[in-house]
């Protein structure tokens, strides 16, 4: 898609012949100059032959432009075998008259020169090949080797010049490969004759790892990318990565995704990371960086997202096993195909190759989350800038594809922040894991150093790996400062004990009060019973007195009756009786 866009945008003055080599058409604005010769030069083993061959095969298969491959070094058989590893079936193409392979070889030992000669034989052979299949593209693979095979370089020079002109006149798009010479692009100065387009391939070794790069030295009549672009040769052929052309115009999502750790989500204003943001977790050895990554992965896979995990220090199986021990189960997702590991040693190849491989894998797997664990594995003493450039390219690429990037980084020393300050500009959310050493033990603390676009927590959390995943705990903040681990535990126990004591005291006070109340109530009971006893005695006495009193009154009445007196007796009870009497 991008390629087509590029082609259209470069309203070509010059007709171009698309290569279909990943990325190259973008740099050249549509391909190689159509109907003209292009010089591809580079040192031994830099991929000249493959480049040329891919140009032909793609032309034959995708653009219906048959091609002639004239090889001055390898035989037809060797060529066929060599490119079979890229999935090109030359035999079939030759059979279908899409490709013409011809090996031109001269044994220096069996040749003697006698008098003037010309290269008409070569012209005739090329012409015959072109006519036989109606070729539109021609490759002359290392025509310079003729210089060592044929006598009289003077004649050769003239003849080759004539050949290039002849090819141009024929209107075939030609690639001429040449070895890189000392201080010049080619050994025999071919660049003097072929000036329409010159591509330089480079294969250099830096810090024991090889880097392949490509540069368009010139392209007459056309704009082109001028940088050195990393390229890769792998089972899919040639691919160039013009990533430096990316800009800062990607779309920023406001969607949020969970970190997989509920309390970390809370710290990041309750919702987790932004989608398509760049997250860095840095910390000293053994602080749990990979675990945080794994937790994130697990959460993502549970949401049915695809995750690509680049590990540079552990093998996938080791990582899965280790994460299992802290209760993060990755294996089911691996089996389900949502999670893919890609494990390489950083030293296996150069940064550029890592970059290109990663991007190819990302394009292929189409994940929504990519983990790089750890990125500092790439660092050597003095390649910080290069690493940063590589990461910048990756970050740009991922942002453009709306993929969330998650990096871990191992830091050393105390000033963790400054040791990675050069990365800071790339990072949207930066978590720092640090050791907190108190009371003879190390504990892990987690803090959000920065998180663009959200109000994040400023608190240090204690970070614990349990057998059911990661837990974030509040650190103890008390009179004695910030405490973690056992110190926190013991402080908490102490606090608990004090509280208990206080509760006990309250209890006992309440109990005492209770007792007093009980005592009081008991006393009340006793008093009441005493009173009751006394009362009953008193009532009894009262009763007797009453009876006596009555009896006395009755006696008086009786006596009065007996005496027949008229004295009225002033007792109430007796009055009625008197009436009735």
């Amino acid at each position, binding site marked *: 898609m991008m390629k087509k866009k590029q082609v259209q945008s470069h309203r070509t003055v010059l007709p171009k012949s698309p290569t279909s080599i990943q990325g190259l058409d973008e740099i050249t604005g549509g391909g190689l100059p159509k109907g003209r010769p292009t010089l591809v030069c580079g040192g031994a083993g830099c991929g000249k032959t493959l480049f040329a061959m891919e140009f032909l095969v793609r032309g034959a298969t995708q653009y219906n432009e048959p091609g002639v491959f004239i090889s001055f070094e390898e035989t037809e058989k060797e060529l066929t075998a060599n490119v079979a590893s890229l999935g090109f079936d030359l035999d079939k193409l030759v059979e279908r008259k899409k490709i013409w392979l*011809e090996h*031109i*070889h*001269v044994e220096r030992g*069996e*040749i*003697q*020169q*006698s*008098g*003037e*000669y*010309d*290269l*008409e*034989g*070569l*012209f*005739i*052979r090329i*012409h*015959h090949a072109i006519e036989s299949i109606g070729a539109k593209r021609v490759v002359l693979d290392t025509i310079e080797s*003729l210089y060592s095979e*044929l*006598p009289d370089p003077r004649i050769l020079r003239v003849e080759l010049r004539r050949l290039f002109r002849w090819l141009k006149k024929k209107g075939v798009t030609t690639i001429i490969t040449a070895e890189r010479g000392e201080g010049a692009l080619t050994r025999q100065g071919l660049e003097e004759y072929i000036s329409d387009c010159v591509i330089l391939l480079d294969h250099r070794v830096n810090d024991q790892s090889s880097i392949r790069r490509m540069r368009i030295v010139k392209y007459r009549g056309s704009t082109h990318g001028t940088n050195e672009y990393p390229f890769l040769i792998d089972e899919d052929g040639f691919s160039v990565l013009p990533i430096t052309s990316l800009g800062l115009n990607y779309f920023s999502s406001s969607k949020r995704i969970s970190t997989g750790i509920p309390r970390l989500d809370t710290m990041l204003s309750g919702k987790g990371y932004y989608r398509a943001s760049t997250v860095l977790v840095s910390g000293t050895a053994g602080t749990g960086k990979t675990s945080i990554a794994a937790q994130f992965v697990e959460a993502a896979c549970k949401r049915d997202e695809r995750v690509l995990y680049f590990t540079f220090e552990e093998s996938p199986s080791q990582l899965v096993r280790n994460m299992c021990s802290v209760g993060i189960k990755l294996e089911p997702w691996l089996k389900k195909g949502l999670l893919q590991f890609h494990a390489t040693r950083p030293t296996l190849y150069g940064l550029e190759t890592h970059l290109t491989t990663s991007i190819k894998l990302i394009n292929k797997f189409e994940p929504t989350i990519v983990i790089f664990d750890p990125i500092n594995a790439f660092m050597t003493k003095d390649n910080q800038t290069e690493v940063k450039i590589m990461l910048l390219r990756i970050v740009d690429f991922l942002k453009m594809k709306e993929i969330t990037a998650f990096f871990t980084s191992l830091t050393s020393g105390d000033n963790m922040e400054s040791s990675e300050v050069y990365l800071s500009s790339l990072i949207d959310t930066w978590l720092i894991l640090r050791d907190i050493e108190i009371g003879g033990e190390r504990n892990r603390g987690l803090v959000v150093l920065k998180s663009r676009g959200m109000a994040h927590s400023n608190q240090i959390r204690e970070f614990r790996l349990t057998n059911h995943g990661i837990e974030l705990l509040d650190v103890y903040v008390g009179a004695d400062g910030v405490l973690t681990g056992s110190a926190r535990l013991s402080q908490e126990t102490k606090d608990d004990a004090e509280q208990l004591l206080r509760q006990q005291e309250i209890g006992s006070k309440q109990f005492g009060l209770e007792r007093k109340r009980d005592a009081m109530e008991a006393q009340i009971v006793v008093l009441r019973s005493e009173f009751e006893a006394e009362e009953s005695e008193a009532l009894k006495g009262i009763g007797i007195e009453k009876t006596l009193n009555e009896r006395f009154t009755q006696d008086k009445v009786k006596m009065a009756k007996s005496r027949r007196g008229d004295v009225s007796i002033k007792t109430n009870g007796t009055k009625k009786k008197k009436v009735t009497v």
Partner: protein
Amino acid sequence: MKELTAKINHQKSKISKRKAQPAKSRNDKWVLRLYVAGQTQKTATAFNNLKLICEEQLKGKYHIQVIDLLKNPQLARDDQILAVPTLVRKLPLPVRKIIGDLSNTERMLVGLDLIERSALKVTL
């Protein structure tokens, strides 16, 4: 393939004065093939030079085939012809090739193993 009848060029030649050296293949049948591209001046020169030397050195034992690549371009592949004119000694083995219009007789004789390589160095 096309065989041409020879026109002998009565050019002066020093060959007869030279001792004809290694004689080992002298009695074998010689098959020589001359590749050319069209009827050019170079073609004619080469053919004439060849005929002359053959008459002097290999009289009666040689057979010359002239192949015009313009007419039979596919034949160039078998003998790996790039330069024209090219003379290929098919027999006796091993195969030898000489490129050029054969105007340098000594070099041609060396190329055909008719004189030793060392002889060339001396004369050079």
